[in-house]
């Protein structure tokens, strides 16, 4: 298929970016979206032009690196998939495709389509951990009985890959789905109880400090999340935050 690509190009964090048009032909419908970009880059390199920079790693929907805004939607038109899992069969011959980086003040652009998502790392460092005695008498985690419902909900929350699609989709660039998934996965398990109250206040505080917006419950994050993280996690985080503040 032949396609018209409109791609955000930006030399570096300080430079002014713009949309640049590229025509690309002979794209197989069996290619993944990233393979299509690989083909474009090969052609650009052959012409002596600067290839388009974009993030990718595992290319199997696990690492959360490949985060692109495709035709106005995070990870493109297909539900429940990351950009690397998106196939060109989802597009038609002659289509025009707009490709932009995820946009948020907390995710500054490094180059072209690559953004700096270390704000997520700092939010995790603030509280997404548990205290474990590693002096040689560590208790086997499986020795602690866990309610099946809580275990399932914690597992669902832990399936968040931190790609940032929730921030990209939210009209407020809010990171609450991501942060609430991390808060939930620990709050629901016995191992997470020691730092439970401190965790939610510290993570929310760091989230606000990073410059993410506030949640207005549009549900866009849930709809665009490639891992199907539910906004019930945001309600849980709100409960945890209110409860933690009432106790302190």
């Amino acid at each position: 298929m032949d396609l018209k690509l409109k791609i955000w190009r930006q030399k570096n964090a300080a430079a002014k970016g713009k949309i640049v048009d590229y025509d690309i032909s002979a794209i197989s419908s069996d290619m993944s979206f990233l393979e299509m970009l690989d083909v474009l880059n090969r052609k650009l390199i052959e012409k002596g032009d600067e290839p388009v920079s974009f993030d990718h790693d595992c290319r199997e929907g696990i690492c959360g690196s490949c985060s692109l805004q495709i035709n106005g939607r995070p990870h493109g038109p297909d539900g429940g998939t990351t950009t690397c899992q998106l196939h060109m069969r989802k597009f038609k011959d002659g289509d025009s495709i707009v490709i932009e980086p995820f946009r948020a003040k907390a995710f500054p652009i490094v180059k072209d389509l690559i953004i700096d998502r270390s704000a997520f790392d700092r939010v995790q460092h603030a509280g997404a951990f548990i205290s474990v005695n590693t002096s040689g008498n560590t208790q086997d985690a499986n020795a602690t009985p866990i309610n099946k419902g809580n275990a399932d909900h914690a597992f669902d929350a832990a399936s968040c890959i931190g790609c940032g699609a929730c921030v990209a989709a939210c009209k407020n660039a809010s990171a609450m789905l991501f942060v609430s998934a991390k808060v939930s996965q620990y709050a629901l398990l016995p191992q997470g109880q020691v730092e439970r109250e401190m965790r939610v206040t510290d993570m929310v505080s760091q989230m606000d400090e990073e410059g993410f917006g506030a949640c207005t419950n549009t549900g866009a994050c849930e709809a665009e999340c490639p891992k199907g993280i539910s906004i019930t996690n945001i309600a849980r985080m709100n409960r945890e935050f209110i409860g933690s503040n009432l106790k302190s």
Partner: protein
Amino acid sequence: MSAMSFISSSIGKKVAMSLSAFFLISFLLLHVAINLLSVVSAEMYNEASHFMGTNPVIQFVMQPILIFGVLFHFTMGFVLEFQNKSARPIKYKMKNEKGNSSWLSRNMIYSGLVILSFLGLHFYDFWIPEIKYKYIEFQAPDEHRYFGELVHKFEDPMRVGFYAISFILLMMHLLHGFQSAFQSLGVNNKFTPGIKKMAWVFSVTIPLAFVFIALFHHLKH
């Protein structure tokens, strides 16, 4: 965490918005109940309005709380909107939000602004003349004047039109805001589908009842 740190956090602001919203929603229910009396009986409406207008607890305790609640909800709404807009300084060249969220949920600030302008007119129409009547001109209480004043206001078709548009916008605001307030307070459980249905029924019927009252008096008198 202090109360100030709580209210300055993103979740604290949403909690404050939700609590003030629930307060305003409960006031709306009381307001429509009294206004509906005007459709049933002029006497009953006059009696209820006279009670609301002269009871010292309502006048000097509830009324200031209500005004504070209205101002707080709008101010906090603007603060959140400003904070949220600044979280994405560079906009997308292409947006496709229809597939992931409702128009109502994305445009609460605009429905809120229309409601705010309506409240300005409402204060100009009813509240300011009431304050003038009672506390500036010190006129003698007249428990039979309220129904006539109400009917007089709805004689102007332009006012009735703006009134109707404002309440349609209020309906749109409530359709997202009411059920959303529960989520902000951490309520998302097995009762959520029922809460959403109840919020939908409230959000549609209450504003329509206000529109019905305005049209009723406009057409009848």
